[in-house]
């Protein structure tokens, strides 16, 4: 069609172009993806737009990379895949994001509308497949609906409790011309924070003798770190975090105790057990935190703040339940605390807690002198500095990192908590490195999980990402082996695992690597990695039977906790 008045050719917009425009209008900078037959029209349009595409080596990695990007920035991560196997490969990434409330938009190509439902080549019902672990999903069959649907998907992904949204687009819809687009931004509806509940929460905390704050991922998601610290300081209340809440409160702060749970610090588990008021904010009482629910924090009156009202009372019945954004609710409570002018007097409680931590601190100090995971964590922190962002995989190393790496920068631990996805760390770190190219990014992984997405070293090399990797190599699927040791009479069924020579592997990818064994200089190796440009892998050979302590057996309580001294008899 020609516009004669201005002598320009008007090119009708295609579905693919509408998709790219929606991404631009949402402020998207990076897409992580992998092309294929059913998504080719989108990839054909992509070079015409200022969108940066990261070609991964496996679609699962694309989903984790988008997840890492989203966790690090607070923005919506975007993953693109084709139909069929491309779509099925992102499933683990979507489930990981759903469990940890990470905003993600996944765009999948689909077979053409005429081929739908006919078992066509590379056809899968990705919408049906992902219904249980997406916040929402769309199959867009009208090209005019593409732009508004894309915008709506972003709104849904980031609003309220964030989560992944899938958009499945048949190939012919991507090709088709659009005629109209109408978009109305959704009104974000934050549940109202009622005054009386906040005032009651402030009062309950003031009256308590042994209060604790238990902060979760919701604090990071809502950017409420400052409010959390202010409230803790104003009231002098000690703070513990969930695994995903780590780095929502500075770990070098005198009010910080640590994190509880199955492999959390024993003293923190005991602190919760003894507390008489527990302010739980932005967390969902995961079974890894509570253990036996009937014996969890029995003496505590629980104040539970969560943006998802369906979380209130799901596991722990709160004395006060507040369905609200963590930042808004903490501000509200702070207001009542300031109005009252009272400050808590919890000196005796804090002394008791400090005393209970002394044996752990002594053990930690001793362990830092010896070759092993604890020393490695300290060396990384020392070499990488305050700005380091640590991305972990899942297993023993994850627990060691959470316990012994001192996180002082907010949102500096990126880890798969809810789903516990092995293979998460390396691709997620790519997302973090794209978000913060100037800041140090370290991966800590086990030798099992690292091999699950090791192919992404090629992506890392292509983009020159400055990611440093510490593989804690014990020749086992370590956490499973540990549980076999304790609960299956040391029957190490299918947990010994081999791997490549990492020095040769890194060389094959054009990267640098080094093997570190007992007797080698850990600090020197870590410094070398930090100072060497580009991606470096350090393969730390550690004690094959090193264990994570404490451990609370599944479904048990803090009273059944196994500590290091118990295990050694």
């Amino acid at each position, binding site marked *: 069609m020609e516009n004669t008045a201005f002598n320009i050719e008007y090119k009708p917009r295609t579905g693919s172009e509408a998709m790219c425009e929606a991404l631009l209008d949402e402020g998207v900078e990076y897409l992580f993806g992998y092309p294929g037959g059913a998504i080719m029209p989108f990839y054909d349009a992509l070079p015409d737009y200022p969108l940066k595409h990261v070609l991964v080596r496996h679609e699962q990695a694309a989903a984790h990379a988008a997840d890492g990007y989203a966790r690090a920035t607070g923005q919506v991560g975007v993953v693109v895949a084709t139909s069929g196997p491309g779509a099925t490969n992102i499933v683990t990434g979507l489930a990981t994001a759903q469990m940890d409330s990470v905003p993600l938009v996944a765009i999948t190509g689909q077979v053409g509308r005429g081929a739908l439902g006919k078992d066509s080549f590379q056809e899968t019902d990705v*919408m049906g497949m992902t*219904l249980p672990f997406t916040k929402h999903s769309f199959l867009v069959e009208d090209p005019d609906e593409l732009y508004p649907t894309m915008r709506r998907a972003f709104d*849904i992904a980031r609003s309220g409790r964030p989560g992944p949204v899938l958009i499945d687009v048949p190939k012919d819809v991507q090709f088709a011309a659009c005629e109209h687009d109408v978009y109305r931004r959704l009104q974000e509806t934050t549940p109202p924070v009622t005054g009386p509940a906040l005032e009651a929460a402030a009062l309950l905390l003031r009256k308590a003798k042994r209060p604790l704050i238990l902060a979760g991922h919701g604090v990071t998601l809502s950017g409420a770190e400052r409010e959390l610290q202010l409230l803790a300081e104003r009231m002098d209340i000690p703070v513990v975090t969930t695994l995903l809440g780590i780095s929502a409160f500075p770990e070098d702060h005198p009010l910080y105790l640590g994190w509880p749970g199955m492999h959390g610090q024993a003293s923190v588990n005991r602190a919760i057990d003894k507390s008489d008021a527990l302010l739980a904010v932005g967390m969902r009482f995961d079974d890894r935190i509570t253990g036996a629910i009937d014996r969890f924090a029995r003496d505590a009156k629980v104040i539970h703040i969560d943006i998802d*009202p*369906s979380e209130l009372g*799901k596991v722990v019945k709160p004395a006060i339940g507040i369905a609200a954004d963590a930042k808004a609710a903490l501000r509200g409570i702070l207001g009542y605390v300031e109005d009252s002018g009272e400050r808590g007097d919890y000196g005796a409680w804090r002394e008791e807690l400090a005393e209970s931590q002394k044996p752990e601190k002594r053990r930690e100090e001793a362990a830092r002198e010896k070759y092993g995971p604890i020393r490695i964590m300290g060396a990384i922190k020392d070499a990488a500095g305050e700005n380091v962002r640590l991305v972990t995989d899942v297993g023993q190393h994850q627990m060691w990192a959470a316990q012994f790496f001192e996180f002082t920068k907010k949102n500096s631990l990126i880890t798969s908590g809810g789903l516990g996805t092995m293979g998460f760390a390396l691709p997620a770190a790519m997302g973090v490195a794209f978000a913060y190219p100037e800041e140090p990014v370290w991966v800590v992984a086990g030798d099992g999980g690292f091999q699950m997405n090791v192919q992404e070293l090629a992506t890392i090399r292509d983009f020159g990402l400055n990611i440093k990797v510490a593989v804690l190599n014990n020749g086992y699927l370590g956490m499973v082996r540990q549980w076999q040791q304790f609960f299956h009479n040391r029957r190490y069924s299918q947990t010994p695992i081999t791997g490549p020579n990492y020095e040769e592997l890194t060389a094959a990818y054009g990267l640098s690597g080094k093997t570190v064994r007992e007797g080698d200089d850990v600090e020197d190796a870590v410094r070398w990695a930090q100072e060497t440009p580009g991606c470096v892998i350090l393969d730390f050979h550690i004690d094959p039977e090193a264990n994570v302590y404490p451990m609370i057996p599944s479904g048990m309580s803090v009273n059944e906790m196994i500590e290091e001294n118990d295990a050694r008899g």
Partner: protein
Amino acid sequence: MTPEARAKTKPTLPETASAVEVRITGGIYALNRFLMTLQSKRIPVAGLTVGGNTKAMLVNVLIDSPPETARRYATLLGALEDVEELRTADETLGVALLKPEGDGWRKSAAKMGIETHEDGGTVVASGSPEVLESWLSEIGNGEITRLGTVARPGEEV
């Protein structure tokens, strides 16, 4: 049907059941997501009916849990994008379609507080599930189709 057989088919209404009425748009995927949520969140469903038209579906769910838990489940379901409207029930009703013989049913229905109306020879009867069951047993003749329990719209979540 013998009284024994009727007793066997008599639906039992859990004492703690709470009913919610949900209006869903988005077609079969939306209904699928709704059902999947009931399944994946292990929501204890004691009864479920689906009706509607091409524009929307009406789903009545009877949740077998204490009211407080049912409210939490209702909140969770109400947050689904496809759910246009969700109401918890002020009152749970049993509904049955029947083609009774004779005319005696009118008097007994009025006596027991069963609401009825006729639609082309079919009688639509509704009332408290227990009372409705008792009444159906009493009239005990003709063709009876129980539609299950439904919620009378109450508070919007």
